[in-house]
């Protein structure tokens, strides 16, 4: 395995991000497991300033939604962006510095949690580093724009469009979280637009960038329609940022914003259908004999989770459901759904890239299959569990409102807890499955890179040398 300290090309840089992605994922999932354990079993575990639910939840937000997402974005930017525009990146040394800078700042943000007197907000950004993050990301966005303009090509491959959109919305989410909050509704607005831009849009666009690449390249398929791909791109770019305000239905947000959010949530069906038709028609033209079935299953699974998540986002726009679903785990469920779809797309991309970048074949032996199956089962259980908790706690908050004496706490909540308590305990075990599976995924990648069979192309290169 050859790794250069200072990468000379996009492929060298991709190698670095490809290696640190599973580490970051495993770290995030280990914190998720600890956090869930401290929720359900806090009485059995030692509590201190670090090992308590509140701190671990903040740390989880930073590692998962800060560090891991930034690594995912930089991985696809470093590999797919240049592939998509069909040329080497202009200003590569500066792109290398800014992309490494963004990931380093996110990492530093996680570390700063352990430094006393440095405060970070509940969304996972410390005030000390937010300006640096914005500066680095602005730089990268500028270089991406220059590269797109330098392409001088009327039609660019769709992955580049999705990546470009993802970079912009990551930047916008940081601008949103950096704004001062002076009145009550500012907090709700920040939470609304941060969640939609940072999680919903950025993750959707990362997912779509990878899938549009994989569904044509990996399976030798022909993209069914460029128009449908464009509809997906512009649809998700324009509609999804508005879709989270509906979850604050009845709060002090302006009514027009809540109504716009509801209608635009329904409209997500248009880009979603465009994507689904394009995906199915494209995959149908694949070269069945030479297609890697494991990768195909991974891509199909990622797409299934993505469609399921978007359907939940659309369905939750019904006015009758909003009082039940708002402020519950249902909102977390949608974030987790977008995360899961992106993870499976990246896992598929990782297995696709190992032969390309490291010249080693992935044989999909028991270790690899165990990791993939574990992650699939874990995420299906996680999503279903959160769906159950979200809907039931919402219903019981309704029932609880009419139960007992309104001046006495707990009667409604006791009712809710008796129904969903077991599911919170279950969350801990689901998180454990995910943590173990992601560890195996990391080991599977390492094993393939270090001791996998050398690919035929690599052998030919060696014999020529």
């Amino acid at each position, binding site marked *: 395995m050859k790794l250069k300290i200072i990468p000379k090309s996009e492929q060298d840089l991709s190698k670095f991000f490809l290696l640190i992605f599973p580490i970051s994922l495993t770290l995030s999932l280990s914190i998720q497991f600890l956090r869930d354990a401290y929720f359900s079993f806090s009485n059995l575990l030692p509590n201190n300033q670090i090992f308590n639910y509140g701190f671990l939840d903040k740390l989880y937000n930073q590692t998962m939604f800060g560090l891991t997402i930034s690594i995912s974005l930089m991985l696809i930017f470093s590999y797919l962006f240049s592939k998509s525009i069909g040329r080497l990146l202009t200003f590569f040394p500066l792109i290398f510095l800014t992309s490494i800078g963004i990931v380093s700042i996110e990492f530093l943000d996680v570390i700063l949690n352990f430094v006393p007197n440095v405060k970070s907000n*509940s969304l996972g950004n410390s005030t000390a580093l937010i300006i640096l993050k914005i500066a680095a990301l602005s730089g990268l966005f500028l270089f991406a724009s220059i590269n797109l303009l330098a392409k001088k090509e009327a039609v660019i491959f769709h992955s580049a469009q999705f990546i470009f959109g993802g970079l912009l919305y990551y930047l916008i989410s940081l601008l949103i979280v950096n704004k001062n909050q002076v009145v009550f509704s500012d907090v709700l607005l920040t939470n609304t*637009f941060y969640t939609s831009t940072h999680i919903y849009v950025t993750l959707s666009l990362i997912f779509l960038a990878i899938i549009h690449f994989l569904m044509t390249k990996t399976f030798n398929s022909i993209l069914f329609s460029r128009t449908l791909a464009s509809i997906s791109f512009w649809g998700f770019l324009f509609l999804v940022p508005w879709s989270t305000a509906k979850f604050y239905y009845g709060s*002090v947000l302006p009514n027009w914003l809540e109504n716009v959010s509801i209608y635009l949530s329904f409209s997500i069906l248009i880009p979603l259908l465009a994507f689904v038709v394009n995906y199915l028609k494209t995959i149908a033209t694949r070269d069945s004999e030479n297609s890697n079935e494991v990768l195909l299953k991974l891509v199909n699974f990622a797409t299934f989770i993505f469609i399921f998540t978007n359907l939940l986002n659309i369905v939750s726009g019904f006015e009758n459901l909003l009082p039940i679903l708002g402020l519950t785990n249902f909102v977390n469920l949608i974030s987790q759904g977008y995360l899961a779809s992106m993870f499976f797309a990246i896992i598929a991309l990782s297995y696709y890239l190992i032969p390309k970048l490291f010249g080693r074949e992935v044989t999909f032996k028991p270790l690899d299959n165990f990791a993939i199956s574990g992650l699939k089962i874990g995420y299906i259980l996680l999503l279903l569990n959160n769906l159950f908790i979200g809907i039931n706690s919402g219903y019981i908050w309704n029932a609880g409102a009419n139960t007992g004496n309104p001046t006495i706490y707990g009667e409604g909540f006791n009712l809710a807890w008796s129904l969903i308590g077991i599911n919170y305990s279950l969350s801990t075990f689901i998180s454990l499955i995910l943590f173990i599976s992601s560890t195996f995924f990391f080991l599977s990648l390492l094993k393939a890179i270090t001791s996998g069979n050398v690919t035929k192309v690599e052998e030919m290169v060696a014999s020529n040398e």
Partner: protein
Amino acid sequence: MSDLINKVAELLKAPASLVQRSAEARAAASGSSVDDVLNSWLGGENITTSTPKEEAPVEEVVETVEEVKEEAPVEEVVETVEEVKEEAPVEEVVETVEELVKIKEERALTFVLSVIFVGLFTYFFGFLTTGNQATALVEESLNNTVEISNEAYIGAQIYSELNCQSCHTQNVRALIPDTQNGKVLRNKYASEAVLNNIGNIRLGPDLSTNATREPTNNKQWLTRYLNDATSVNREIPHPKYNFLNEQDMNYLVTYLLSLGEINE
């Protein structure tokens, strides 16, 4: 052929006569027919990659071009111009090619600007304008500031650092399920420490009116519950905060007991 010319002219937003002259020059240079050249342009295919034998549906051709790793359309076009030199009037072809390149540059620019426009529209119209509307509403109302004691303020900071807002909201919605939680909050001005604690997800009860309800309006009960929740309720898990020193615990309890007043 005239239909093809018109379609290409429409696609490139160039005059039909210019497209025809350019296509004839290209056909002469590459040895293919004018129709083939026009068809290749219609599919967005790179000019030099079109050959009569490689006819394929439009999407397929486009896809093939995309998958070429190192594309350099501009240089290729310039090479073609050099090849054409002897067979067509140089100035005319160069003019045509420059125009095509200019159109392509404009399209990339349009794409970049359009994406930035959508992003800025979301940020300015959705986020900033709405925030300004809310602030303007507060300015118009009377009694629009939140008064809070110094002890409660420190308690609010501790509440935020412990991330209590990850499970508890202080957000009473104008909806029937929330009627037992107290009054709907107004858009008051408040310090950052207080605002941080509003919360997103309601895993535990809403705490907007914590101080006006039993048993959480009792200081001793609250202190005992925060130190070890199982000592008062075995069924519901709540993190232990027995690692807080006595002073910090007092600040936190003072803040929680002020929540009925703050959130009126």
